[in-house]
């Protein structure tokens, strides 16, 4: 298949781009590629998240592990996550500047009548590149715990780079909408109808961007899906377009590393000649 003949050229068209979501259509590529992109965006785009919490003091009503869990789920700005090493790639024994970011949280409630909210805004990062995200000055931050008078939380957090495959807290996106063939022209699915399809099945919004079937259209059973509608919503740690970019990058990296693996296997296996005729 010639990838670069004009008819077969893969194409991306961005429909909508805001601070928190991106909508685009991927055309002229195959399902596996589109799905690989989706999967990588969800699970393999690296971000920064709090991974270790050292409790110096916790007199709140919440248990240590419960607070630690909440801290882990707070999105940190990961725009420059690629500037930091994965802990496993770092030569240090525990955590160093190369592979981690330290954040501190120290809140004590001194108010008499009301409770004090401990929020993500109280987290002080040692690295200005990696801070808890906020939506402007009005944003109250993400609630971590509530303290009453005399209660105090003092913790040291170590944020590390990771991917959502390992833990959901490293996922940059909330949901990835993915659709092809809104009119079911490929007949991949079989709508279950009781009376009237139009009444029971409202159309998806992607139908506006697709080509409705003609009344007498003949079913092409060889047709393959080639228009993929994506919508990605970020949790805030990364701009939505960066998620897509990083996903492409990650995909490339993955393929190249497999390529490398394949090359390193270019030694005689079981006494046979290596396959030299590849390139």
């Amino acid at each position: 298949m010639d990838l670069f003949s004009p008819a077969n050229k893969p194409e991306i068209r961005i429909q909508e781009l805001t601070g928190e979501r991106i909508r685009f259509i991927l055309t002229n590529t195959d399902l596996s590629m589109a799905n690989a992109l989706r999967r990588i965006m969800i699970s393999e785009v690296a971000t920064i998240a709090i991974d270790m919490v050292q409790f110096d003091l916790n007199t709140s009503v919440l248990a240590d592990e419960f607070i630690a869990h909440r801290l882990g789920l707070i999105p940190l700005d990961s725009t420059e996550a690629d500037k930091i090493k994965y802990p496993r790639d770092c030569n240090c024994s525990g955590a160093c500047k190369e592979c981690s970011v330290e954040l501190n949280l120290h809140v004590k409630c001194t108010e008499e009548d009301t409770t004090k909210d401990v929020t993500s805004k109280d987290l002080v990062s040692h690295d200005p590149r990696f801070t808890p995200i906020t939506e402007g000055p009005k944003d109250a931050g993400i609630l971590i715990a509530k303290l009453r008078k005399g209660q105090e939380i003092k913790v040291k957090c170590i944020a590390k780079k990771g991917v959502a495959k390992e833990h959901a807290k490293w996922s940059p996106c909330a949901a990835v909408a993915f659709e092809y063939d809104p009119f079911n022209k490929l007949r991949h699915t079989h709508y279950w109808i009781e009376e009237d399809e139009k009444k029971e099945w409202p159309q998806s919004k992607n139908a506006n961007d697709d080509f409705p079937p003609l009344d007498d259209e003949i079913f092409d059973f060889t047709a393959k899906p080639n228009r993929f509608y994506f919508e990605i919503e970020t949790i805030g740690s990364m701009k939505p377009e960066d998620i897509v970019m990083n996903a492409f990058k990650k995909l490339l990296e993955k393929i190249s590393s497999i390529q490398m693996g394949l090359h390193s296997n270019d030694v005689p296996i079981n006494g046979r000649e290596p396959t030299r005729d590849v390139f």
Partner: protein
Amino acid sequence: MKITPDTKVQNAATFEIFREDHTMGNVIRHKLLQEPQVIFAGYKIPHPLEHNVIIRVQTTNETKPEAMVAKALNDLITEVGYLRTKFMVHK
């Protein structure tokens, strides 16, 4: 990666890729199946608690499984690279 040639079938081999999942398995299989020289291409994840992918490829006599996998990977790189630049332009 570990490559094990099939002992019984000519021009067939399994490729075990470590620390990969359906993402790569599916996309490589798909690319392989687009090649006319590939007679068989399939992948599996032997167990959900094992994080490896096994791809099995059988080709015609004209070529070798390793070659076809390499080609598939190459094609993939080209395609992803192309898409990436497209995306960057549109952005």
